């Protein structure tokens, strides 16, 4: 199967390069090293008019050799305050990365899904309880200012600073 995963990653890579202009919130999506198609990185841009505006969030993507039967493992490298992202490890709680994964998803569509997760949090399955509790209490103003603070603190400079 390992040759199959490489062939699929190569096709995804070519499609990603072709569609580069059509993804406003995905600044970058590429293999970290050109000869290793199983380890990628991505940079998400915070949506304008959201609390993440101005932030650049780096993702680390590991493709298992059984891909696309198994989902890729994706985590935030940049610290981010979000109900569904673990603040310390960067782990993401998203159904399509776990139980709802199907081979119909691609790296590109998964990154777009993570990008839309930023503005559509799911406080019912939290990895960051503090952020989720603020939302569950209805304190949107408090939540937004918390997110803005962390975005300004960690995500406005160089992404590589962890």
């Amino acid at each position, binding site marked *: 199967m390992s040759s199959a995963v490489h062939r699929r990653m190569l096709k995804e890579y070519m499609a990603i390069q072709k569609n580069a202009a059509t993804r406003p919130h995905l600044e970058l999506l590429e293999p970290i090293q050109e000869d290793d198609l199983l380890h990628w990185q991505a940079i998400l841009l915070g949506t304008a008019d959201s609390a993440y505006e101005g932030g650049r969030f780096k993702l680390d993507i590991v493709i298992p050799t059984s891909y*696309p039967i198994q989902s890729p493992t994706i985590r935030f490298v940049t610290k981010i305050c979000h109900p569904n992202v673990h603040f310390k490890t960067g782990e993401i709680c998203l159904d399509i990365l776990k139980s709802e994964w199907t*081979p*119909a998803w691609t790296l590109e569509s998964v990154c777009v899904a993570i990008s839309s997760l930023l503005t559509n949090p799911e406080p019912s399955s939290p990895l960051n309880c503090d952020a989720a509790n603020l939302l569950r209490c209805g304190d949107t103003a408090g939540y937004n200012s918390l997110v803005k603070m962390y975005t300004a603190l960690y995500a406005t400079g160089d992404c590589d600073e962890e």
Partner: protein
Amino acid sequence: MAMHQFPLLVQWSSEPEIYHGFLSVMDRELEICIEMPGTGAGRTGSTLTKAGPRNASKNILSSRIGCISGSEELKEILSGQETQLQQKMEEAKDMASFLVELVDTLEVTMSNRSAKGDKERPLRYWTHVMEQLDALGWDRVTLVDQDLSRVQIELCDASQRKHLITARFPPAYPTMPLSIAPLEIPVCEDDQLAAQHGLNMGGLSSKQGIGLEDVIRQAEGQLEIFREFWDVMQDFDERTWVIDPEKPTRADKVRRCALGNHCSIQVTVQPLSPRSMPDTRLFGPTASIEPMRTKLYQNAGLWDVKKLPRENLEVLLELESGFPSPISTNKDDINVGCGICYSFRFEGQIPDQLCSHVKCQQPFHRACLYEWLRSVPTTRQSFHTLFGACPYCGETITTSAPKT
């Protein structure tokens, strides 16, 4: 100086001592020239220019007892062993005893070579092979081995298709007959019909005495028998998208042609009556191929042997714009890759498992879909069939274990 052991060496001069002649090894004569420094004159320089063999370029070996030069042939045989021989020469007490050692070395080297099959072929072989090729005409020869043992000849049939035929000449040619690799022709199941066409399925006969030209003429006869068959196949190859086989050979009589919308038709042409109605098989989602199958049966009477089978199928299937072809459509629109591995051809398989949902119809390889469904906990299994959800639309999709 005991040079009399080598009767083919003749003394040319005595001051310095120069011998010129041949060393006789394994029935071959190798040209050699030996110069030994004169005893009292103290001349150590080489004066080989007068006496050296015509094609000698440089000394092969030289030491205090003298120097040796020889023909290219000798040099070639000794190549790689110079250092070893040089050492022996330094140790030898005189030229005669060294020559004995040199002959030994030559014998060993040459017998090793002939054991590797690099045997010299007799003149008779060369003249006969050349004669055959001259008679055939060198313009038809596309490839020859260095020793002419294998010759590839290009044949052209009446429709300007090129066919390659390989002839092998055994070392004992012409006592042994030449052998011809069978032409790439389709296998005919109907033996009787084959016999009627005077077709010898055992290949081309090449008895002793039959020349290359006769064999080629025989092969051309066979090509003529299948000319119409290849015309039909070529028409399929040029005017439709053939999705299987990937690279059809002259022997392939099956073509699977894309019809668009994930449907395809497999046509098996009869080699000896290529224009009659071939065996066909339709592939694709049942909802799409069922009406086509009905059309094939209903319109069967419209089959016209004067037309090419491709044209006939277009009439029978009521394809208004004909088969999708390389002229009219893009390959990627026809060869839709598997929804899991994204390839079209994977381990020789094409994605033939389709989602039955009309709006989805996503194709998958059986192996890919099987592996996916097996990994999903909600998939049910009944005997060898898996029932699960299409990765794309979520509708029920079934598949069975791929043949291993």
